[in-house]
């Protein structure tokens, strides 16, 4: 028995085996510390993930490109509309070609950044600008006081009247002598009456009166202002959707006016050169903007309006 014990104890107390437990423990701790290092590395990676530069710049590049496109197309339309010697078809073709050329140039500029940027013209719509630039009665080319400026009008913009106050009828319009601007639709009629003291609006969805207290009387029909002051009654958007623009009692208003319409100018009542005149132009342009990067595909349609010289 003693021999057995001795032999067992000799096995246990063998110095060469004493460190085993410590070794195993140290190894286990080393593994745990390695895991800890890994976790801490993950935190470090997370921090680098958080500060990674965003490739899309919150979409600002796209918005900038889209705004550049809008501005460029508007400038092109403005240029061609300022050229009164061009036919409206030539103006449309010029807008299409110039926009395509600009799209190619922009595409080449963005190509090194692996970005595909392009602009495609979808539609160019024509319209007419009707103006009386020198002061005179608001009558037709044939001196008619009740006449039509444009038909089939679906949209109009920059409709501005500048009327000498003294030429207007007095503050009573009972005898129907006051100057009237009428948007005559198939079902509804929107009517603006001007006398020396007030602008009176009567429309299907809106109506009211705005005072006149300056001379000349400046009315911005589409912006809804009289004498630069906002006139809530002038809610032109409440008018009919397709209409004729007519003047009534035009001989009782002297001044200038201009309007750009998407519709047909009544050429029989207008002159090509002398006042009141019409000028065919590009009313608006629809373009498709495409912007592609490895991370993004963006596409939208823009309708660019404006472009006629604002003289």
């Amino acid at each position: 028995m003693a021999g057995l014990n001795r032999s067992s104890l000799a096995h246990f107390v063998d110095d060469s085996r004493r460190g085993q437990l410590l070794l195993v423990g140290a190894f286990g701790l080393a593994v745990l510390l390695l895991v800890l290092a890994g976790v801490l590395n993950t935190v470090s990676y997370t921090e680098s993930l958080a500060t990674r530069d965003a490739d899309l710049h919150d979409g600002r590049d796209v918005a900038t490109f889209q705004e550049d496109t809008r501005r460029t197309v508007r400038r092109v339309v403005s240029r061609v509309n300022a050229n009164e010697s061009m036919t409206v078809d030539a103006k449309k073709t010029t807008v299409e070609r110039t926009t395509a050329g600009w799209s190619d140039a922009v595409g080449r500029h963005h190509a090194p950044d692996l970005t595909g940027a392009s602009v495609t013209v979808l539609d160019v719509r024509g319209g007419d600008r009707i103006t009386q630039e020198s002061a005179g009665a608001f009558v037709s080319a044939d001196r008619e006081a009740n006449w039509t400026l444009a038909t089939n009008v679906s949209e109009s913009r920059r409709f501005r009247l500048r009327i000498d106050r003294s030429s207007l009828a007095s503050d009573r319009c009972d005898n129907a002598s006051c100057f009237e601007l009428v948007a005559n639709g198939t079902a509804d009629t929107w009517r603006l009456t001007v006398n020396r003291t007030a602008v009176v609006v009567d429309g299907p969805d809106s109506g009211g009166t705005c005072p006149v207290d300056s001379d000349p009387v400046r009315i911005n029909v589409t912006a809804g202002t009289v004498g630069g002051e906002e006139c809530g009654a002038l809610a032109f958007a409440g008018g009919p959707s397709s209409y004729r623009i007519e003047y009534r009692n035009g001989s009782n208003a002297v001044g200038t006016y201009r309007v750009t319409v998407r519709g047909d100018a009544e050429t029989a009542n207008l002159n090509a050169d002398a006042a009141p005149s019409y000028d065919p132009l590009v009313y608006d342009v629809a373009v498709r903007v495409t912007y592609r990067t490895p991370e993004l595909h963006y596409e939208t349609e823009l309708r660019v309006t404006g472009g006629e010289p604002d003289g």
Partner: protein
Amino acid sequence: MGDRRSGVSSPRPSAERGATTALRYALLLVIVATMVSGLFVGVGELVENQQERAIATQLETVGNRLAADLGTANHLVETGSGPGAAPTVELRTRLPDTVAGSEYRVRVTGSGPRYTLALRSFDPVVETTVVVRSSAGIDGSVSGGRVRIEYDGTGLVMRDG
């Protein structure tokens, strides 16, 4: 070795030699085992806590990145919306496959304009939320890796891929 044993145990009777050594060894074993297991438990808990903290931090970061991408997509939808057809917005982004070694999933809750991205890791389970504001609706759920955010004409949908 024999010298040392004889030197140390010389005053003791030879019959107690083995017993004393075994006792000392047993005590040594107990002490070392206690210390090692204590260290194991301590370090193990430290590692576990650190992992949970790392997961929570990383989930929050992932959520904020995803919220930023959703914000970008929403901004693009607003930029591209007009009288024409609805814009096409398809944004691809890359999130970590795992957070501190754990897989996770992101779901959208709430309603416009204030949505909540709920991020949940599976092992260990850690949850965190990130708020995102969007005028376009947000729907879908993703589980890291490649993520696509698309505008379907009514709202933003995020999906894996």
